[in-house]
């Protein structure tokens, strides 16, 4: 009876039973992955555990070893601390740059060109008339000598707006094309795939980081219908990837690195929205594939550090670090839950419509000639956007300002058309009286409705263009408009019919009891939920965005309604839909798979085709090389001999090619007839040339199932263990192999979606 394999170690190296030991750099490249390949989770985790055991065991040998052990223990926290610092810094830079560049379209502050309009007019004592223009702010018409109100001034302002927008967008598109094409788009579907174990080289690199940061500033400043939240997640994950190389525990181990990346994603949402807890939940719900408790703590820490850095750098003097801080003087009444749920349903519908339309357009763009002119597409889109959005004041202002305007309550300091009610403000600190809407409100409603239609159409065409673009702010904006319209309708209803049974209680006094701003907030959450199909993360992000902890119940109601209505039309959110469109090898681990097939139905080879195998000690080098050349498989099972297919282990194509290449280079007495020995001893008479010993690349513990294992179990194993392939045996003998590609094809056939598997 063979002894159970154990871990032997001597002074120089550790040999394990089934995993390549520490000296893998003897054959360079062994243990690393090629581009566009899936990682082997089990192998990497086992390598890490072994490395950890070695360090712990030798901790007491010397002071240096003790320091190494301590470094290993806190390297995770140290890495995430640095990631949080860097993420907060980059986010602040992006914020400040975006704010400045956005206002360049309207004018410039002549004595301090780095200030945007609001900051330029900040300490002027002429702002009693409103925020829009003060004497220090030099609009472009004024530069030419015309006044703002004249017709010539309007045209100059229009033209300069369009020209600035075109130059920003053009610059962004050209920079992306020239330096880092992977910096285009929102990147969250790709990040989901990467975190599930896929490798895309360069996607998280230095140039991508730089170009994405600069590009998102330019895209938002160009007035395109984009947000910067998705790109911020990409930026922080790039930072996480780059900094993880400082700590070999994470840099050299792809499975461990994904822990850092999950935590970095949390800090991305934390700095983009000012929502640290929402960021952690976003990383859990949307982006990460495996999320153990350890990652939960680490994400929390990273998001906290990043939020702290942003808060301390924040130069804008607001007391609140909350993005859309609102404070409503009156809470909501119970009856309002009905319109909130209605808003949720509308949000789900809008979300579904948006997803379907965007996927249709993305597919069209991918297949038609438009896809060959990416820079031209960006410029044309910006031109249409700028020309149509300038006349409407609600599309001219940046989406963030519009959202803030829609969320806020009409008060003394708010003199937009939206707040043109027939009321007099007598006291800043008192309650706001209920009032009929003036004509300004109806004008504003018409303009807002046009803005809504325009925004929906533009966002459908904008998501997927080859400049950095996110879709959170546009979704929030669309929802805020819908919500505000519904809210104003409710408010006027309450004003004109105060005797209605629902309003009789709190609304019978003269005070205003319906707050349209709250409806805007709920609407925004509903549409964002409809598009992304988030639930918990959405509610937490919303109440961290607005500081409105009292409004959790309306937000939850709307989020649930939105998800139910949206799911009734299609299970996929926008990210899953893009993953399906691009055909990424992403095995969704949230859905249940319900089928009665067994492993024998799915395994390769089908029918009577022969199984490509290697034998443990009876194949020559030339036979092995010809098998490698003539087949495309990524893994080869190793059996005892051609006659008896009892399983010995499994070897990967990449390892085999590297090992053979290294052996051919270094050993001189190798010929094509040399026997390749994977396991066991050289039999009988040694032939003329010495054997090729490839013991070290053989995996002696491949995961196997029998041919009668139900596919539900097999798919569960793929998801939970992160496998790439599974060997199928029958009565102990090797029968076939199931790869991840086979599993995904099987699932998609079963669910009748269109398969287009990547590679």
């Amino acid at each position: 009876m063979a002894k159970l394999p154990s871990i032997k170690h001597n002074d120089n190296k550790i040999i394990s039973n089934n995993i390549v030991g520490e000296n893998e750099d003897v054959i360079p490249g062994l243990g690393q992955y090629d581009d566009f390949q899936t990682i082997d989770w089990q192998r990497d985790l086992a390598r890490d555990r072994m490395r950890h055991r070695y360090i712990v065991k030798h901790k007491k040998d010397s002071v240096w070893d003790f320091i190494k052990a301590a470094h290993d223990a806190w390297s995770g926290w140290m890495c995430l601390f640095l990631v949080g610092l860097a993420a907060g810094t980059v986010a602040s830079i992006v914020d400040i740059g975006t704010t400045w560049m956005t206002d360049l379209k309207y004018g410039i502050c002549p004595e301090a060109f780095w200030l945007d309009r609001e900051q330029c007019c900040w300490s002027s004592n002429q702002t009693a008339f409103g925020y829009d223009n003060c004497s220090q702010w030099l609009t472009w018409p004024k530069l030419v000598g015309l006044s703002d109100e004249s017709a010539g001034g309007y045209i100059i302002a229009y033209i300069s707006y369009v020209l600035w927008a075109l130059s920003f967008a053009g610059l962004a598109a050209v920079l992306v094309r020239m330096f880092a094409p992977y910096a285009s788009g929102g990147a969250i579907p790709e990040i989901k795939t990467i975190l599930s174990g896929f490798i895309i080289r360069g996607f998280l690199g230095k140039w991508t980081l730089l170009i994405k940061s600069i590009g998102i500033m330019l895209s938002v400043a160009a007035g395109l219908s984009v947000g910067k939240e998705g790109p911020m997640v990409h930026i922080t994950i790039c930072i996480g990837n780059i900094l993880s190389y400082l700590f070999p525990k994470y840099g050299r181990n792809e499975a461990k690195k994904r822990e850092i990346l999950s935590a970095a994603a949390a800090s991305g949402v934390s700095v983009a929205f000012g929502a640290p807890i929402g960021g952690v939940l976003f990383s859990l719900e949307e982006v990460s594939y495996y999320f153990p408790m350890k990652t939960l703590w680490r994400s929390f820490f990273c998001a906290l550090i990043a939020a702290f850095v942003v808060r301390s750098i924040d130069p804008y003097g607001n007391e609140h670090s909350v993005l859309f801080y609102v404070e409503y003087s009156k809470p909501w009444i119970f009856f309002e839950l009905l319109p909130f749920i209605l808003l949720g349903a509308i949000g789900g519908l809008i979300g579904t419509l948006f997803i379907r339309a965007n996927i249709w357009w993305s597919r069209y763009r991918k297949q038609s000639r438009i896809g060959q002119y990416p820079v031209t597409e960006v410029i044309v889109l910006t031109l249409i956007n700028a020309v149509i959005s300038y006349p409407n004041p609600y599309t001219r202002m940046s989406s963030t300002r519009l959202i803030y305007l829609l969320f806020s309550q009409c008060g003394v300091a708010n003199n937009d058309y939206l707040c043109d009610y027939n009321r007099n403000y007598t006291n800043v600190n008192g309650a706001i009286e209920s009032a009929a809407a003036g004509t300004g409100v109806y004008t504003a409603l018409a303009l807002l409705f046009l803005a809504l239609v325009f925004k929906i159409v533009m966002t459908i065409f904008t998501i997927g263009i080859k400049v950095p673009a996110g879709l959170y702010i546009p979704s929030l904006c669309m929802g805020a408009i819908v919500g505000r319209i519904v809210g104003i309708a409710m408010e006027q209803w309450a004003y004109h019919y105060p005797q209605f049974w629902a309003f009789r209680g709190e609304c019978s006094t003269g005070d205003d009891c319906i707050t349209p701003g709250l409806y805007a907030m709920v609407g925004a959450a509903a549409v964002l939920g409809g598009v992304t199909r988030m639930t918990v993360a959405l509610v937490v992000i919303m109440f961290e965005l607005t500081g409105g902890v009292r409004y959790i119940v309306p937000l939850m109601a709307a989020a649930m309604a939105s998800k139910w209505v949206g799911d009734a039309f299609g299970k996929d959110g926008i990210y899953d839909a893009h993953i399906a469109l691009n055909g990424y090898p992403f095995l969704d681990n949230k859905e249940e798979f319900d089928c009665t097939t067994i492993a024998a139905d799915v395994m390769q080879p089908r029918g009577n085709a022969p199984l490509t195998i290697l034998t443990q000690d009876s194949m020559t080098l030339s036979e092995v090389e010809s098998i490698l050349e003539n087949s495309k498989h990524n893994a080869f099972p190793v059996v005892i001999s051609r006659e008896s297919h009892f399983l010995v282990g499994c070897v990967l194509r990449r390892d085999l090619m590297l090992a053979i290449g290294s052996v051919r280079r270094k050993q001189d007495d190798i010929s094509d007839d040399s026997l390749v020995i994977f396991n066991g001893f050289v039999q009988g008479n040694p032939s003329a040339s010495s054997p090729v010993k490839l013991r070290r690349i053989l995996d002696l513990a491949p995961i196997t199932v029998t041919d009668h294992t139900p596919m539900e179990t097999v798919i569960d194993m793929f998801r939970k263990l992160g496998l790439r392939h599974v060997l199928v045996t029958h009565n102990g003998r090797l029968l076939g192999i199931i790869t991840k590609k086979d599993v995904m094809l099987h699932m998609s056939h079963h669910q009748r979606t269109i398969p287009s598997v990547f590679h």
Partner: protein
Amino acid sequence: MTLRKSFFLSFFVLFIFSFISDVNAQYEDVRCKCICPDTAVVNGTQSHRKLYIENVPPNKCDCTNVVLPRVGDDIKGKEKEFCPRCECKYESRNTTTIKVVVIIVIWIISLLVIYMLFLVCLDPLLNKKTTTQYQEHNNEEDESETHSQPLRASGAGVLNRVGQTTDKWKKTVQEQRRHIYDRHTILN
């Protein structure tokens, strides 16, 4: 290559200079912001003035020091009615941070634009001898690591390495462009 070096040096000098500039006192970092209703509430004559901003130290940020000097004539004798209806807040900001960040962003963008122009215009002219080697590799499926490095004119060791790194980077970007713009395999 001295051209490149002198570019960077001059940019660096200008970069430092741009921080040493004087800012007008109108762009201060603190203010006191008071929001008040119309003076018409107490039978004053002025209306439509709702926001008052003044630069006073925080202990003087209240109605009497900020609002009354402006509208004192309007509401003579009725200050005690008017002032409680006002809300005053002291705010501060940091314009130096904004200045530093905006200047950094401008510099980064201009460096990128110049580098891009250099790559598009000057680089092919400078490297005309050595570019003929690797033009044909563009649309091959072969993604293995067996491409040999294109021969470079033998210069100093450091320049050689810089040249090789740039070549490798250019190849990576070309690969990325192929995936996104030509074959549409990712990021659609």
